[in-house]
């Protein structure tokens, strides 16, 4: 049976991971776009992205578009696998497969 991933399960991090996972081509997502999707504040989003980056689930890239700084985030292969495992775990709980 799959296991709960406590890093992903935090509500905002779950939203971040879901949004990044929805970009199936693995395209990086703009910080501003993530903010709209998750409806989080700058500080909150930044701090949870850092947690996910430290866990190796997310890769953050910073560059410039013209003179404007841009921050983007994308799921790493490990993050994608962890997210799928976590979703499987949730489904197993909902479908009553938990034998504990």
């Amino acid at each position, binding site marked *: 049976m799959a296991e*709960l991933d*406590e890093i992903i*399960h935090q*509500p905002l991090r*779950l*939203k971040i991971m*879901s*949004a990044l*996972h*929805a*970009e*199936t*081509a693995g*395209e990086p*997502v703009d910080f501003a*776009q993530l903010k*709209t*999707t*998750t409806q989080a504040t700058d500080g909150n989003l930044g701090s949870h992205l850092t947690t996910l980056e430290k866990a190796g689930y997310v890769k953050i890239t910073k560059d410039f578009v013209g003179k404007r700084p841009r921050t983007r985030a994308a799921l790493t292969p490990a993050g994608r696998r962890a997210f799928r495992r976590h*979703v499987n*775990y*949730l*489904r197993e*709980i*909902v479908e*009553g497969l*938990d034998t*504990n």
Partner: protein
Amino acid sequence: MNISRTEAETALSDIEQAAAAVCVQRSYRVAAPILILWGVIWVFGYAGMGILTGAHWSLLWIPLDLIGIVGTLFVVRRSRGGASARRTRAQSGFSPWHALAILLMLVGTFVMFGPSQPAAYIAYPGLLCGFSYMMFGIMRMPRLAWIGAAMGALTLLGFFLAKDILSYWMAVVGGGGLILGGLWLRKL
């Protein structure tokens, strides 16, 4: 740590909502350049209608419509790159068949009712496009609903209050509105 079934259901629902929000944003990104393209076409087309006589209107619009259709197909095709785009289309509920249905309705009602006044001929596409955008917007893309509502209302306003300059009205308000709408969607 274990979680309850209710917590798991809530988490799964959050995941679905976040994925749906991404899907809507992606749909906006696809729709934005299409609206801008058609906005530019409307500016040229309707401004041309104001300058040219009615006999030349078809000659004006056929190439412009072809440019619009080819451009739209190009944008849609470019967005078809990966599985994410296929998912976008599936989740947004929009397919090329919807566009074809709108086109058939436009041509069908145009042929059936055959607007005899030039003003009705000019205003009809704006009204139908506004209505179509509203319907798609209500279903999946709220911002598109606002663009459609504004477009329909401004078309009616021009039809009743600015009949003498309706083609220029449609060029500025309709075409300009589509361009602004596209830029608004791009901001997401």
